[in-house]
């Protein structure tokens, strides 16, 4: 697994799909391949309220990438320094093995170049000290990128707040 993690806060996400277009325009991709996908599920009825979950799916940059294993031409690389998995276009022969192998649909087909394409966390930007395009321009800042061990732990923060609020309200109402 790469040392990085791309975290999505579904509570902040509004499903605007800007991430998908930021990705495409940064990579110069036209209609067809989508290196990231933000899929929304819902609305579903949760205690009478419509609730929608947003699931952002870039490449997960696996520790043992299925795409990497099946690539016959050595086009899929994994950086030793940080584990980013990427495709070297010059080596890609367009066999689509990676597209078949990836269980999450991360590897995509580019009809213009007739080669496979995938998310590389915008490694050129990462190398320049920047964040991936989708994260940089995310409308509500629901996407966060960084080293997995350093990312904010908002779920625990929120849970703690709930527990505290409950405790406070019990204290103030007790005789």
């Amino acid at each position, binding site marked *: 697994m790469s040392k990085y993690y791309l975290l999505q806060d579904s*509570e*902040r996400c*509004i*499903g*605007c*799909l*800007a991430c*998908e*277009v*930021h990705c*495409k*325009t*940064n990579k110069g991709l*036209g*209609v*067809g391949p989508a290196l990231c996908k933000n899929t*929304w599920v*819902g*609305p579903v*009825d949760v205690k*009478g*309220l*419509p*609730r*929608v979950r947003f699931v952002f799916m870039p490449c997960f940059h696996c520790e043992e990438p299925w795409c990497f294993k099946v690539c016959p031409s050595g086009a899929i690389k994994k950086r030793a320094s940080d584990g980013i998995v990427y495709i070297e276009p010059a080596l890609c022969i367009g066999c689509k093995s990676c597209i078949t192998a990836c269980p999450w649909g991360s590897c995509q087909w580019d009809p213009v170049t007739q080669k496979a394409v995938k998310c590389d966390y915008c490694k050129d930007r990462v190398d320049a000290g920047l964040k991936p395009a989708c994260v*940089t*321009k*995310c*409308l*509500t*800042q*629901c996407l966060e990128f960084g080293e997995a061990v350093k990312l904010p732990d908002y779920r625990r923060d929120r849970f703690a707040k709930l527990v505290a609020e409950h405790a406070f309200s019990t204290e103030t109402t007790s005789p």
Partner: protein
Amino acid sequence: MKSIKAPNVSGVGSPGRRSVFSMCGMCATRCPIQVEVEDGRVTWIQGNSHDKAMGASLCAKGAAGLSLEYDDDQRPQYPLIRTGPRGAGQWRRAGWDEALDYVADKLKSVIDKYGGKGVVLSDRGGAFSDLTKSFVKALGSPNYFTHDCTCGSNAHHATKSLFGVGRTGMSYDFKNSKHIVLYGRNIIESLQVKEAKDFIQALQNGAKCTYIDPRATLTAGKAARYWQIRPNTEYALNLSIINVLLKENLYDRDFVTRWSIGLDELSSFVMDKTPEWQETYTGIPAREVRSFVNEIANDAPKAIFHAGWMTARHLQSFYGSRTAHAINALLGAIEVPGGSIFAKGAKDVGKKGLNNLTDRIPAVKDPRVDGCGWKHTHFDPGPGILHLLFPAIETGDPYKVGAYIAYRHDPLSSLPDPEATMKLLDRLELLVSIDVNYSEAAWRSDVILPESTYLERANILTEKTGPKPSFLMRDQAVSPRFDSRPAWWIFRELARRLGVGEFFDFENVEEIWNYQLEGTGVTVAQLREKGQISLADKPVLWDREKGLKFKTPSGKIEFTSSVLKKAGLDDFVEFAPPKNMEGDEFRLLFGRSAVHNHAHTMNNPLLNELLDYNPIWIHPSRAEKLGIADGSLIEVSRQGYAVKGLAKVTPWIHRDAVFMLHGFGRTVPLQKRAYNKGTADQRLQKGMLTVYDPAGGGHALCECTVHVHPA
């Protein structure tokens, strides 16, 4: 006449890298952006992070500006002059000189026949309308229109009736609010970047949202309370909220006493409008309304009742908006953090504003053709009421007009019943569209003048009002890819050909900017540095004891309004309940998604890929009775017009209504990606062109009902 090329701003097209601070043009919000250019080509667009509220954020449409620029060749690339009948799609390519001469000659003959007032122009208002207003004024015509009769007119006039300022004269401080109440104001899909960011941040900070809409939008998905209200009944709900506020003494008595007139009249009007009374009409349980009002009174004054943005909904939309703002007033949620705050201009913060182009032109004496300001004394003559033009075209009363210029406005997408609209436009001698895209109206025009994209053009400078007013610049990032021109150049060239060139004696856009900035102490160079200059260090709030400036006749919030009285209108009218829908009859509702701008972007390659179809939402209880299954083909019809589309059976639409996203069902064959995909709500709105809220002037589009059957 010798051809003059449009001068680019200096430095465009030069080699190397540069950052251009500008304004987006993918929708009318015009967010501040930063454009990276390499060797004359745009490589990256992001939000202008000099604006802290904006940051680098940008929506999908903003990102797809690159796709508009480089992938979309299915847009007008050079001037076109019609050769066949209107709408037949027969064109010939023309040079700019020829096209401009053609338009100018036709305009001349219209002006000779009817006077300058015979020329009409519509655009979508907003930041750069000083230019179009000037052009119309220079011709001696009072007939400048915005699209507002299909958008904010009802909210605009309602806000004016209470506070003396229009819809945009009041801003909402979402970020500091504790409770945000939205009546179908779909903040996260009908999207303005800064507003959506503030809204989400407010929720993160613990604010609650109460969302009221016959359809559960994504915004409903973020709300702590969602009421699936019966369509067109929010006015009844509001009256009952006022009833509880007053009866239970939950309002801000000090504020209301100090700053309003007519509380007694309002009080006696709502006396019998109890939560139990409204339940019959809205379907919202009375006890829920009571508990909501108590909650909101606790949250006040950090509370916002959004008076609506696009409120061209029903025959009492004006009163829906008016009561929403009346609630804000009763809660004392005016000019406080977290509430509604007056938008300030340069003058309000002690600065000199931009010089207007219109100020150089003598006043027009003729009255407006739509009667705004004289026949309809309560309608703002600034934007006018566009649909009132059409009866005038039909009857020649108060006078005849002969030419219509649609500038980045598509009357055939935004107005209801395009067939009826076009029949009336066909009576005119000249119909011109100036647009970046092929609009439905452009396709039926005599001449299409292609405007350069927002990345390829500079506009006049603009002043943005708000708690922190600012000057903003749309700068030119790259040279035009096709034979297009910026608007300032097009209107200048037409003005020169029509003998009023002295009002547009600018050789390039920098000269216009310098004129606008004269005496403000701000320079073009300063604006270029960051794309904007803020005129105040922090949000300016007036003193709530002494300093509130209500621009009403009384200088106070007018629950009783002399303006309305003069126009023969009531301060508050009895609620007129809509009939319940049964059998195959449904109310037709419409709305927006986050990835498209009205009807402008359906053919953008990347946005079209994200969303190219609009299914028709229908409630399961009604669908089942009609034998309609989810995903099945259905027919929707009204007055002889029928269209087929796929049903989306979902409980998240009120049983009385069917819903579809607006902007689909394009009929311009050259827009190959969007052509004929989906359904156009405006085509189903047969007979609705002249149906409007008499108090607000805006259309009553959701009064439209349709019949639905399996196809």
